[in-house]
Protein backbone atom coordinates (compact mmCIF):
# COMPACT_ATOMS: atom_id res chain seq x y z
CA UNK A 1 0.00 0.00 0.00
CA UNK A 2 1.28 3.48 -0.86
CA UNK A 3 0.31 6.66 0.90
CA UNK A 4 -1.06 8.02 -2.39
CA UNK A 5 -3.62 5.16 -2.41
CA UNK A 6 -5.38 6.88 0.48
CA UNK A 7 -7.54 10.00 0.35
CA UNK A 8 -7.35 12.48 3.20
CA UNK A 9 -10.82 13.07 4.71
CA UNK A 10 -9.49 15.34 7.46
CA UNK A 11 -6.31 15.68 9.54
CA UNK A 12 -7.03 12.46 11.46
CA UNK A 13 -8.92 10.33 8.94
CA UNK A 14 -7.84 8.74 5.66
CA UNK A 15 -9.81 6.55 3.27
CA UNK A 16 -8.99 3.78 0.82
CA UNK A 17 -11.81 4.01 -1.75
CA UNK A 18 -13.87 0.99 -2.66
CA UNK A 19 -12.48 1.29 -6.18
CA UNK A 20 -9.01 0.42 -4.87
CA UNK A 21 -9.73 -3.28 -5.42
CA UNK A 22 -12.57 -4.94 -7.24
CA UNK A 23 -13.56 -7.27 -4.41
CA UNK A 24 -14.02 -4.54 -1.77
CA UNK A 25 -17.64 -4.28 -0.61
CA UNK A 26 -17.07 -1.01 1.30
CA UNK A 27 -14.27 1.58 1.56
CA UNK A 28 -11.61 1.22 4.25
CA UNK A 29 -10.95 4.04 6.71
CA UNK A 30 -7.90 4.69 8.88
CA UNK A 31 -7.86 7.05 11.83
CA UNK A 32 -4.36 8.46 11.91
CA UNK A 33 -2.37 11.62 11.40
CA UNK A 34 -0.09 12.05 8.42
CA UNK A 35 3.08 11.31 10.38
CA UNK A 36 1.81 7.98 11.73
CA UNK A 37 0.38 7.09 8.33
CA UNK A 38 3.95 6.95 6.98
CA UNK A 39 4.65 4.29 9.60
CA UNK A 40 1.37 2.43 9.01
CA UNK A 41 1.96 1.97 5.26
CA UNK A 42 5.32 0.37 6.01
CA UNK A 43 3.71 -2.94 7.06
CA UNK A 44 0.82 -4.89 5.54
CA UNK A 45 -1.90 -3.73 7.92
CA UNK A 46 -3.72 -1.68 5.29
CA UNK A 47 -3.66 -4.54 2.76
CA UNK A 48 -5.24 -6.59 5.54
CA UNK A 49 -7.82 -3.85 6.10
CA UNK A 50 -8.70 -3.96 2.39
CA UNK A 51 -9.16 -7.73 2.76
CA UNK A 52 -11.54 -7.11 5.69
CA UNK A 53 -13.54 -4.78 3.41
CA UNK A 54 -14.34 -7.83 1.23
CA UNK A 55 -16.19 -9.74 3.97
CA UNK A 56 -19.83 -10.57 3.21
CA UNK A 57 -22.22 -8.32 5.12
CA UNK A 58 -19.71 -5.64 6.13
CA UNK A 59 -21.36 -2.26 6.70
CA UNK A 60 -20.17 1.26 5.79
CA UNK A 61 -16.38 0.87 6.23
CA UNK A 62 -13.64 -1.46 7.36
CA UNK A 63 -12.04 0.66 10.07
CA UNK A 64 -8.50 0.87 11.44
CA UNK A 65 -7.55 2.73 14.60
CA UNK A 66 -4.31 4.74 14.90
CA UNK A 67 -2.58 1.88 16.75
CA UNK A 68 -3.17 -0.41 13.77
CA UNK A 69 -0.45 -2.90 12.89
CA UNK A 70 -0.17 -6.14 10.99
CA UNK A 71 -1.95 -9.12 12.50
CA UNK A 72 -3.11 -12.52 11.28
CA UNK A 73 -5.82 -11.90 8.66
CA UNK A 74 -7.39 -8.87 10.34
CA UNK A 75 -5.05 -6.06 11.27
CA UNK A 76 -4.69 -5.46 14.99
CA UNK A 77 -6.61 -2.25 15.65
CA UNK A 78 -9.35 -3.25 13.20
CA UNK A 79 -13.13 -2.92 13.43
CA UNK A 80 -15.73 -4.53 11.15
CA UNK A 81 -19.49 -4.26 11.66
CA UNK A 82 -21.41 -7.04 9.94
CA UNK A 83 -25.09 -7.39 9.14
CA UNK A 84 -25.92 -10.67 10.94
CA UNK A 85 -28.74 -11.42 8.53
CA UNK A 86 -26.60 -11.68 5.42
CA UNK A 87 -23.05 -11.50 6.73
CA UNK A 88 -20.39 -13.59 8.40
CA UNK A 89 -18.64 -14.13 11.71
CA UNK A 90 -14.86 -14.45 11.43
CA UNK A 91 -12.83 -15.79 14.38
CA UNK A 92 -9.82 -13.97 12.92
CA UNK A 93 -11.71 -10.70 13.46
CA UNK A 94 -11.71 -11.41 17.18
CA UNK A 95 -8.19 -12.80 17.40
CA UNK A 96 -6.55 -15.83 18.95
CA UNK A 97 -6.60 -14.34 22.45
CA UNK A 98 -10.37 -14.06 22.83
CA UNK A 99 -11.29 -11.24 25.23
CA UNK A 100 -7.78 -10.08 25.69
CA UNK A 101 -8.53 -6.96 27.67
CA UNK A 102 -7.56 -4.44 30.29
CA UNK A 103 -8.76 -3.89 33.83
CA UNK A 104 -7.86 -0.85 35.93
CA UNK A 105 -8.01 -0.98 39.72
CA UNK A 106 -8.22 2.27 41.68
CA UNK A 107 -6.32 2.41 44.97
CA UNK A 108 -6.73 4.72 47.95
CA UNK A 109 -2.97 5.36 48.02
CA UNK A 110 -0.78 8.12 46.58
CA UNK A 111 2.72 7.70 45.20
CA UNK A 112 4.17 8.90 48.52
CA UNK A 113 2.22 6.19 50.36
CA UNK A 114 3.72 3.34 48.36
CA UNK A 115 7.21 4.70 47.64
CA UNK A 116 8.81 3.12 50.72
CA UNK A 117 7.48 -0.34 49.83
CA UNK A 118 7.38 -0.22 46.05
CA UNK A 119 9.89 -3.04 45.55
CA UNK A 120 8.19 -5.24 48.11
CA UNK A 121 4.84 -4.46 46.54
CA UNK A 122 6.05 -5.40 43.07
CA UNK A 123 7.56 -8.57 44.47
CA UNK A 124 4.35 -9.48 46.29
CA UNK A 125 2.32 -8.94 43.11
CA UNK A 126 4.73 -11.21 41.23
CA UNK A 127 4.40 -13.85 43.97
CA UNK A 128 0.58 -13.72 44.08
CA UNK A 129 0.05 -13.57 40.32
CA UNK A 130 1.86 -16.27 38.32
CA UNK A 131 3.28 -15.09 35.00
CA UNK A 132 5.53 -16.34 32.25
CA UNK A 133 5.83 -19.40 30.06
CA UNK A 134 3.96 -22.44 31.34
CA UNK A 135 3.19 -21.01 34.78
CA UNK A 136 -0.05 -22.49 36.05
CA UNK A 137 -2.31 -20.78 38.53
CA UNK A 138 -3.15 -21.46 42.16
CA UNK A 139 -6.56 -22.83 41.20
CA UNK A 140 -6.96 -26.08 39.26
CA UNK A 141 -10.48 -26.69 38.05
CA UNK A 142 -12.36 -29.90 37.39
CA UNK A 143 -14.25 -30.10 34.11
CA UNK A 144 -17.55 -29.20 35.81
CA UNK A 145 -15.96 -26.27 37.67
CA UNK A 146 -14.43 -25.04 34.44
CA UNK A 147 -17.77 -25.26 32.63
CA UNK A 148 -19.32 -23.06 35.30
CA UNK A 149 -16.56 -20.48 34.78
CA UNK A 150 -17.15 -20.63 31.02
CA UNK A 151 -20.86 -20.04 31.60
CA UNK A 152 -20.71 -17.41 34.33
CA UNK A 153 -17.34 -15.65 33.90
CA UNK A 154 -16.34 -13.18 36.60
CA UNK A 155 -19.57 -13.94 38.48
CA UNK A 156 -18.36 -17.49 39.10
CA UNK A 157 -14.98 -16.20 40.32
CA UNK A 158 -16.83 -13.99 42.79
CA UNK A 159 -19.00 -16.92 43.92
CA UNK A 160 -15.78 -18.83 44.62
CA UNK A 161 -14.68 -16.00 46.93
CA UNK A 162 -12.44 -14.03 44.55
CA UNK A 163 -14.11 -10.65 44.81
CA UNK A 164 -17.43 -9.05 45.64
CA UNK A 165 -20.73 -8.69 43.76
CA UNK A 166 -19.95 -4.94 43.59
CA UNK A 167 -16.94 -5.77 41.38
CA UNK A 168 -19.22 -7.09 38.64
CA UNK A 169 -20.93 -3.70 38.21
CA UNK A 170 -17.66 -2.26 36.94
CA UNK A 171 -16.88 -4.84 34.24
CA UNK A 172 -17.99 -4.68 30.60
CA UNK A 173 -21.08 -6.91 30.27
CA UNK A 174 -20.74 -7.42 34.06
CA UNK A 175 -18.04 -9.96 33.29
CA UNK A 176 -20.36 -12.46 31.62
CA UNK A 177 -21.32 -12.64 27.96
CA UNK A 178 -24.53 -14.44 27.06
CA UNK A 179 -25.64 -16.55 25.33
CA UNK A 180 -22.73 -18.93 25.71
CA UNK A 181 -22.27 -22.69 25.73
CA UNK A 182 -19.16 -24.48 26.99
CA UNK A 183 -20.03 -27.60 25.00
CA UNK A 184 -18.69 -25.88 21.88
CA UNK A 185 -15.27 -25.57 23.50
CA UNK A 186 -13.13 -28.63 22.79
CA UNK A 187 -11.70 -30.86 25.49
CA UNK A 188 -8.24 -29.80 24.28
CA UNK A 189 -9.09 -26.14 24.90
CA UNK A 190 -10.47 -26.94 28.34
CA UNK A 191 -7.37 -28.96 29.15
CA UNK A 192 -5.13 -26.05 28.13
CA UNK A 193 -7.12 -23.70 30.37
CA UNK A 194 -7.87 -25.84 33.38
CA UNK A 195 -4.89 -24.59 35.46
CA UNK A 196 -4.43 -21.14 33.90
CA UNK A 197 -7.02 -19.06 35.75
CA UNK A 198 -5.38 -16.23 37.66
CA UNK A 199 -2.27 -16.14 35.48
CA UNK A 200 -0.92 -13.43 33.20
CA UNK A 201 1.00 -15.59 30.74
CA UNK A 202 3.77 -14.24 28.54
CA UNK A 203 4.03 -11.90 25.56
CA UNK A 204 2.73 -8.36 26.01
CA UNK A 205 0.64 -9.19 29.07
CA UNK A 206 1.41 -7.55 32.37
CA UNK A 207 0.32 -6.18 35.71
CA UNK A 208 1.48 -2.63 36.28
CA UNK A 209 1.42 -0.14 39.15
CA UNK A 210 0.90 3.39 37.83
CA UNK A 211 0.60 6.89 39.21
CA UNK A 212 -1.86 9.37 37.72
CA UNK A 213 0.39 12.19 36.52
CA UNK A 214 -2.15 14.26 34.58
CA UNK A 215 -5.87 14.87 34.82
CA UNK A 216 -7.30 16.24 31.56
CA UNK A 217 -10.98 16.31 32.52
CA UNK A 218 -11.55 17.11 36.20
CA UNK A 219 -15.29 16.42 36.15
CA UNK A 220 -14.95 13.01 34.49
CA UNK A 221 -12.03 12.12 36.76
CA UNK A 222 -14.04 13.06 39.84
CA UNK A 223 -16.96 10.93 38.66
CA UNK A 224 -14.57 7.99 38.33
CA UNK A 225 -12.91 8.68 41.70
CA UNK A 226 -9.55 9.65 40.23
CA UNK A 227 -7.12 12.35 41.30
CA UNK A 228 -3.56 13.39 40.50
CA UNK A 229 -0.84 11.41 42.23
CA UNK A 230 -3.25 8.55 42.97
CA UNK A 231 -2.02 5.00 42.41
CA UNK A 232 -3.84 2.64 40.06
CA UNK A 233 -3.10 -0.93 38.95
CA UNK A 234 -3.53 -2.12 35.36
CA UNK A 235 -4.08 -5.75 34.39
CA UNK A 236 -3.62 -6.76 30.74
CA UNK A 237 -4.29 -10.38 29.83
CA UNK A 238 -6.92 -12.59 28.20
CA UNK A 239 -8.18 -16.14 27.84
CA UNK A 240 -4.71 -17.76 27.79
CA UNK A 241 -4.23 -21.15 26.09
CA UNK A 242 -7.95 -21.89 26.21
CA UNK A 243 -8.80 -18.94 23.98
CA UNK A 244 -6.00 -19.74 21.55
CA UNK A 245 -7.23 -23.32 21.22
CA UNK A 246 -10.82 -22.16 20.63
CA UNK A 247 -9.62 -19.85 17.85
CA UNK A 248 -7.46 -22.61 16.34
CA UNK A 249 -10.33 -25.12 16.42
CA UNK A 250 -12.89 -22.77 14.86
CA UNK A 251 -10.67 -21.20 12.21
CA UNK A 252 -9.92 -24.74 11.04
CA UNK A 253 -13.60 -25.63 11.11
CA UNK A 254 -14.58 -22.52 9.13
CA UNK A 255 -11.89 -23.04 6.49
CA UNK A 256 -13.50 -26.42 5.83
CA UNK A 257 -17.03 -24.99 5.89
CA UNK A 258 -16.51 -22.03 3.55
CA UNK A 259 -16.84 -23.93 0.24
CA UNK A 260 -20.35 -25.12 1.09
CA UNK A 261 -21.42 -21.51 1.66
CA UNK A 262 -19.66 -20.30 -1.51
CA UNK A 263 -17.47 -17.91 0.50
CA UNK A 264 -14.14 -16.88 -1.03
CA UNK A 265 -11.69 -14.82 1.00
CA UNK A 266 -8.25 -13.44 0.18
CA UNK A 267 -6.56 -14.75 3.36
CA UNK A 268 -7.13 -18.02 5.24
CA UNK A 269 -6.90 -16.19 8.56
CA UNK A 270 -10.14 -14.41 7.59
CA UNK A 271 -11.94 -17.76 7.58
CA UNK A 272 -15.61 -17.17 8.31
CA UNK A 273 -19.10 -18.60 8.14
CA UNK A 274 -22.51 -16.98 7.88
CA UNK A 275 -23.60 -15.65 11.28
CA UNK A 276 -26.83 -17.63 10.94
CA UNK A 277 -25.09 -20.89 9.96
CA UNK A 278 -24.53 -23.83 12.30
CA UNK A 279 -20.78 -23.04 12.43
CA UNK A 280 -21.42 -19.33 12.97
CA UNK A 281 -23.86 -19.87 15.81
CA UNK A 282 -21.67 -22.45 17.55
CA UNK A 283 -18.57 -20.26 17.27
CA UNK A 284 -20.44 -17.33 18.82
CA UNK A 285 -21.38 -19.53 21.80
CA UNK A 286 -17.79 -20.80 22.09
CA UNK A 287 -16.36 -17.27 21.78
CA UNK A 288 -18.68 -16.01 24.55
CA UNK A 289 -17.58 -18.88 26.81
CA UNK A 290 -13.89 -18.16 26.18
CA UNK A 291 -14.53 -14.47 26.81
CA UNK A 292 -16.08 -15.43 30.16
CA UNK A 293 -12.92 -17.39 31.00
CA UNK A 294 -10.91 -14.20 30.38
CA UNK A 295 -13.21 -12.11 32.60
CA UNK A 296 -12.79 -14.72 35.36
CA UNK A 297 -9.03 -14.72 34.78
CA UNK A 298 -8.79 -10.97 35.35
CA UNK A 299 -11.05 -11.37 38.40
CA UNK A 300 -8.69 -13.90 39.98
CA UNK A 301 -5.70 -11.69 39.18
CA UNK A 302 -7.54 -8.83 40.90
CA UNK A 303 -7.90 -11.04 43.97
CA UNK A 304 -4.15 -11.72 43.87
CA UNK A 305 -3.39 -8.02 43.56
CA UNK A 306 -5.64 -7.29 46.53
CA UNK A 307 -3.79 -9.89 48.64
CA UNK A 308 -0.45 -8.32 47.75
CA UNK A 309 -1.82 -4.85 48.46
CA UNK A 310 -3.11 -5.66 51.93
CA UNK A 311 0.00 -7.70 52.75
CA UNK A 312 2.31 -4.75 52.08
CA UNK A 313 0.04 -1.79 52.89
CA UNK A 314 -2.38 -3.07 55.52
CA UNK A 315 -6.01 -4.06 55.50
CA UNK A 316 -7.28 -0.50 54.96
CA UNK A 317 -5.54 -0.39 51.59
CA UNK A 318 -8.13 -0.84 48.84
CA UNK A 319 -8.13 -1.79 45.18
CA UNK A 320 -11.54 -1.14 43.61
CA UNK A 321 -12.33 -1.98 40.03
CA UNK A 322 -12.53 1.18 37.95
CA UNK A 323 -13.43 -0.68 34.75
CA UNK A 324 -12.62 -3.77 32.67
CA UNK A 325 -12.82 -3.77 28.87
CA UNK A 326 -12.38 -6.44 26.23
CA UNK A 327 -10.41 -5.47 23.14
CA UNK A 328 -10.67 -8.80 21.24
CA UNK A 329 -14.31 -9.75 20.91
CA UNK A 330 -17.43 -9.55 18.72
CA UNK A 331 -20.70 -8.13 20.06
CA UNK A 332 -24.21 -7.52 18.80
CA UNK A 333 -24.94 -3.80 19.00
CA UNK A 334 -27.55 -1.50 17.47
CA UNK A 335 -26.61 1.37 15.14
CA UNK A 336 -29.22 3.56 13.42
CA UNK A 337 -31.89 1.07 14.45
CA UNK A 338 -30.09 -1.88 12.91
CA UNK A 339 -28.56 -4.78 14.86
CA UNK A 340 -24.95 -5.40 13.79
CA UNK A 341 -22.25 -7.84 14.86
CA UNK A 342 -19.25 -5.65 15.62
CA UNK A 343 -15.88 -7.41 15.39
CA UNK A 344 -13.19 -5.63 17.39
CA UNK A 345 -9.68 -6.99 17.17
CA UNK A 346 -7.28 -4.83 19.14
CA UNK A 347 -10.00 -2.20 19.44
CA UNK A 348 -11.94 -1.06 22.50
CA UNK A 349 -15.64 -0.38 22.81
CA UNK A 350 -16.05 3.37 23.39
CA UNK A 351 -19.72 4.08 24.03
CA UNK A 352 -20.39 7.65 25.19
CA UNK A 353 -19.49 7.96 28.87
CA UNK A 354 -17.79 4.54 28.98
CA UNK A 355 -14.22 4.36 30.33
CA UNK A 356 -11.75 3.37 27.58
CA UNK A 357 -8.52 1.86 28.90
CA UNK A 358 -5.42 2.38 26.74
CA UNK A 359 -2.24 0.76 28.05
CA UNK A 360 0.94 2.19 26.59
CA UNK A 361 4.35 0.59 26.81
CA UNK A 362 6.04 -0.10 30.14
CA UNK A 363 8.33 2.92 29.86
CA UNK A 364 5.92 5.54 28.62
CA UNK A 365 2.32 6.30 29.61
CA UNK A 366 -1.15 4.80 29.59
CA UNK A 367 -4.44 6.64 29.24
CA UNK A 368 -7.91 6.53 30.61
CA UNK A 369 -10.29 7.93 28.00
CA UNK A 370 -14.05 8.28 27.89
CA UNK A 371 -16.12 7.37 24.85
CA UNK A 372 -17.70 10.22 22.87
CA UNK A 373 -20.64 10.62 20.49
CA UNK A 374 -18.27 10.59 17.51
CA UNK A 375 -17.58 6.92 18.16
CA UNK A 376 -21.25 6.10 17.66
CA UNK A 377 -21.47 8.14 14.47
CA UNK A 378 -18.22 7.02 12.88
CA UNK A 379 -16.55 3.93 14.35
CA UNK A 380 -19.34 1.64 15.55
CA UNK A 381 -18.63 2.72 19.11
CA UNK A 382 -14.94 1.81 18.95
CA UNK A 383 -11.58 3.32 19.87
CA UNK A 384 -7.93 2.31 19.84
CA UNK A 385 -6.65 -0.28 22.34
CA UNK A 386 -3.02 0.61 23.03
CA UNK A 387 0.08 2.13 21.52
CA UNK A 388 0.48 -0.46 18.75
CA UNK A 389 3.70 -2.27 17.89
CA UNK A 390 6.20 -0.89 15.43
CA UNK A 391 8.91 -3.48 16.04
CA UNK A 392 8.44 -7.25 16.04
CA UNK A 393 9.44 -9.23 19.11
CA UNK A 394 12.29 -10.83 17.15
CA UNK A 395 13.59 -7.42 16.03
CA UNK A 396 13.35 -6.10 19.58
CA UNK A 397 15.42 -9.04 20.85
CA UNK A 398 18.08 -8.32 18.24
CA UNK A 399 18.25 -4.57 18.74
CA UNK A 400 17.77 -4.02 22.47
CA UNK A 401 20.04 -5.01 25.33
CA UNK A 402 18.06 -6.37 28.29
CA UNK A 403 20.49 -5.22 30.99
CA UNK A 404 20.63 -1.73 29.48
CA UNK A 405 16.84 -1.62 29.29
CA UNK A 406 16.41 -2.67 32.91
CA UNK A 407 18.93 0.01 33.99
CA UNK A 408 17.09 2.59 31.90
CA UNK A 409 13.77 1.69 33.50
CA UNK A 410 15.34 1.90 36.97
CA UNK A 411 16.69 5.35 36.13
CA UNK A 412 13.16 6.38 35.16
CA UNK A 413 11.97 5.16 38.57
CA UNK A 414 10.25 2.04 37.22
CA UNK A 415 10.69 -1.26 39.06
CA UNK A 416 10.60 -4.23 36.66
CA UNK A 417 9.71 -7.71 37.95
CA UNK A 418 10.17 -9.82 34.84
CA UNK A 419 10.44 -13.58 34.53
CA UNK A 420 13.11 -13.15 31.87
CA UNK A 421 15.17 -10.38 30.27
CA UNK A 422 13.92 -11.65 26.92
CA UNK A 423 10.33 -10.96 27.97
CA UNK A 424 11.33 -7.48 29.10
CA UNK A 425 13.16 -6.66 25.87
CA UNK A 426 10.23 -7.73 23.68
CA UNK A 427 8.10 -5.07 25.33
CA UNK A 428 10.66 -2.24 25.37
CA UNK A 429 9.17 1.24 24.85
CA UNK A 430 10.85 1.62 21.44
CA UNK A 431 8.94 -1.44 20.16
CA UNK A 432 5.75 0.66 20.30
CA UNK A 433 4.27 3.73 18.66
CA UNK A 434 4.03 7.01 20.53
CA UNK A 435 0.94 6.46 22.70
CA UNK A 436 0.46 10.23 23.13
CA UNK A 437 0.10 10.58 19.35
CA UNK A 438 -2.25 7.56 19.10
CA UNK A 439 -4.52 8.96 21.81
CA UNK A 440 -4.26 12.42 20.26
CA UNK A 441 -5.84 11.11 17.06
CA UNK A 442 -8.88 9.50 18.73
CA UNK A 443 -9.35 12.60 20.90
CA UNK A 444 -9.17 15.02 17.95
CA UNK A 445 -11.46 12.80 15.90
CA UNK A 446 -14.12 13.02 18.64
CA UNK A 447 -14.07 9.25 19.31
CA UNK A 448 -12.94 9.44 22.95
CA UNK A 449 -11.77 12.22 25.24
CA UNK A 450 -8.75 12.16 27.51
CA UNK A 451 -9.57 11.87 31.22
CA UNK A 452 -6.29 10.90 32.87
CA UNK A 453 -2.75 9.79 32.07
CA UNK A 454 -0.90 7.11 34.03
CA UNK A 455 2.87 6.79 34.38
CA UNK A 456 4.36 3.40 35.29
CA UNK A 457 5.95 2.86 38.69
CA UNK A 458 6.37 -0.93 38.65
CA UNK A 459 5.72 -3.56 36.02
CA UNK A 460 5.26 -7.29 36.54
CA UNK A 461 5.46 -9.52 33.50
CA UNK A 462 6.41 -12.95 32.35
Amino acid at each position, binding site marked *: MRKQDLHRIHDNLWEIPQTHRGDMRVPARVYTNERMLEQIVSDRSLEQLVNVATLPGIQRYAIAMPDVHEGYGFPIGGVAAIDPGEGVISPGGIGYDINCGVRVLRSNQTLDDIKPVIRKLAHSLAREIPSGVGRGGNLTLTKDDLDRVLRDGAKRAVELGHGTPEDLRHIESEGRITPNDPKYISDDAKQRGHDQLGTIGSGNHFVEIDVIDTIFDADAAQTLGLDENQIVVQIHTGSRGLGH*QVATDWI*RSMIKAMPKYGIHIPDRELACAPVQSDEGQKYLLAMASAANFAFANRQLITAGARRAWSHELGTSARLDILYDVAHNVAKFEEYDGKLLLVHRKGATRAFPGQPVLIPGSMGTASYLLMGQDGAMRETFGSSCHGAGRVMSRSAAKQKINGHELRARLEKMGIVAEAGSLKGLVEEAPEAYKDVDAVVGVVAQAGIAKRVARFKPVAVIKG
Partner: protein
Amino acid sequence: MRFRIASETLEGLFAEAVAALTEFMQPAFIDDVVSASFELDAIDTTSLLVDFLSEVLTRCHVRHEAYESVVFASLDALSLRASLRGRKARAFGEDVKAVTYHEAEVVQREGGWSTMLVLDI
Protein backbone atom coordinates in the same frame (compact mmCIF):
# COMPACT_ATOMS: atom_id res chain seq x y z
CA MET B 1 7.88 -15.99 15.01
CA ARG B 2 8.27 -16.79 11.29
CA PHE B 3 10.49 -19.35 9.67
CA ARG B 4 10.86 -20.92 6.25
CA ILE B 5 11.04 -24.68 5.91
CA ALA B 6 11.93 -26.73 2.84
CA SER B 7 12.46 -30.34 1.89
CA GLU B 8 12.83 -32.51 -1.18
CA THR B 9 9.66 -34.42 -0.29
CA LEU B 10 6.26 -33.56 1.14
CA GLU B 11 6.87 -36.00 4.00
CA GLY B 12 10.18 -34.29 4.65
CA LEU B 13 8.48 -30.88 4.74
CA PHE B 14 5.98 -32.03 7.37
CA ALA B 15 8.77 -33.66 9.42
CA GLU B 16 10.82 -30.43 9.18
CA ALA B 17 7.83 -28.50 10.53
CA VAL B 18 7.67 -30.75 13.61
CA ALA B 19 11.41 -30.50 14.17
CA ALA B 20 11.33 -26.70 13.88
CA LEU B 21 8.41 -26.43 16.31
CA THR B 22 10.09 -28.69 18.86
CA GLU B 23 13.40 -26.84 18.60
CA PHE B 24 11.71 -23.46 18.98
CA MET B 25 9.67 -24.54 22.03
CA GLN B 26 12.85 -25.56 23.90
CA PRO B 27 11.32 -28.47 25.82
CA ALA B 28 12.90 -29.52 29.12
CA PHE B 29 12.69 -33.23 28.36
CA ILE B 30 12.18 -36.00 30.85
CA ASP B 31 13.12 -39.44 29.65
CA ASP B 32 9.67 -41.01 29.40
CA VAL B 33 9.21 -41.95 25.76
CA VAL B 34 5.80 -41.17 24.30
CA SER B 35 4.00 -41.75 21.04
CA ALA B 36 0.81 -40.52 19.45
CA SER B 37 -1.10 -41.30 16.27
CA PHE B 38 -3.80 -39.34 14.48
CA GLU B 39 -5.48 -38.73 11.13
CA LEU B 40 -6.33 -35.44 9.46
CA ASP B 41 -7.83 -34.11 6.28
CA ALA B 42 -7.99 -30.59 4.89
CA ILE B 43 -9.16 -28.62 1.88
CA ASP B 44 -5.62 -28.09 0.53
CA THR B 45 -2.02 -28.96 1.33
CA THR B 46 -1.24 -25.68 3.09
CA SER B 47 -4.18 -26.14 5.43
CA LEU B 48 -3.15 -29.76 5.94
CA LEU B 49 0.33 -28.71 7.08
CA VAL B 50 -0.90 -25.94 9.38
CA ASP B 51 -3.63 -28.16 10.84
CA PHE B 52 -1.10 -30.96 11.34
CA LEU B 53 1.32 -28.70 13.17
CA SER B 54 -1.54 -27.24 15.24
CA GLU B 55 -2.47 -30.77 16.25
CA VAL B 56 1.13 -31.42 17.29
CA LEU B 57 1.22 -28.17 19.27
CA THR B 58 -2.05 -28.96 21.02
CA ARG B 59 -0.67 -32.34 22.09
CA CYS B 60 2.48 -30.64 23.40
CA HIS B 61 0.34 -28.38 25.61
CA VAL B 62 -2.29 -30.89 26.67
CA ARG B 63 -0.04 -33.91 27.26
CA HIS B 64 3.16 -32.06 28.25
CA GLU B 65 5.06 -33.82 25.49
CA ALA B 66 7.42 -32.80 22.68
CA TYR B 67 8.03 -34.76 19.52
CA GLU B 68 11.30 -35.70 17.89
CA SER B 69 10.21 -37.80 14.94
CA VAL B 70 7.17 -38.47 12.79
CA VAL B 71 6.31 -41.41 10.55
CA PHE B 72 3.50 -41.18 8.00
CA ALA B 73 1.42 -44.26 7.31
CA SER B 74 -0.03 -42.16 4.52
CA LEU B 75 0.34 -38.59 3.31
CA ASP B 76 -1.14 -36.99 0.23
CA ALA B 77 -2.15 -33.45 -0.69
CA LEU B 78 -5.35 -33.51 1.36
CA SER B 79 -4.99 -36.10 4.12
CA LEU B 80 -2.55 -37.86 6.40
CA ARG B 81 -2.12 -40.58 9.00
CA ALA B 82 0.80 -39.81 11.27
CA SER B 83 2.62 -41.39 14.22
CA LEU B 84 4.68 -39.11 16.43
CA ARG B 85 7.42 -40.17 18.81
CA GLY B 86 8.94 -38.02 21.49
CA ARG B 87 9.41 -37.57 25.19
CA LYS B 88 7.58 -36.06 28.13
CA ALA B 89 8.46 -32.41 28.75
CA ARG B 90 8.60 -30.87 32.22
CA ALA B 91 8.36 -27.36 30.76
CA PHE B 92 8.90 -25.32 27.62
CA GLY B 93 11.28 -22.39 27.22
CA GLU B 94 9.05 -20.64 24.68
CA ASP B 95 5.28 -20.33 24.80
CA VAL B 96 3.95 -21.08 21.32
CA LYS B 97 0.27 -20.21 21.55
CA ALA B 98 -0.88 -21.14 18.06
CA VAL B 99 0.26 -22.17 14.60
CA THR B 100 -1.21 -19.68 12.12
CA TYR B 101 -2.06 -19.76 8.41
CA HIS B 102 -0.43 -16.32 8.08
CA GLU B 103 1.98 -16.31 5.10
CA ALA B 104 1.77 -20.11 4.82
CA GLU B 105 1.70 -21.40 1.24
CA VAL B 106 3.04 -24.87 0.51
CA VAL B 107 4.60 -24.76 -2.95
CA GLN B 108 6.33 -27.41 -5.03
CA ARG B 109 9.10 -26.18 -7.25
CA GLU B 110 12.08 -27.80 -8.86
CA GLY B 111 14.09 -29.26 -6.02
CA GLY B 112 11.26 -29.80 -3.59
CA TRP B 113 8.64 -28.33 -1.31
CA SER B 114 8.71 -25.22 0.83
CA THR B 115 6.57 -22.83 2.86
CA MET B 116 6.73 -20.06 5.39
CA LEU B 117 5.28 -20.78 8.83
CA VAL B 118 4.29 -18.21 11.43
CA LEU B 119 3.83 -19.15 15.08
CA ASP B 120 1.87 -16.97 17.46
CA ILE B 121 4.04 -16.45 20.54
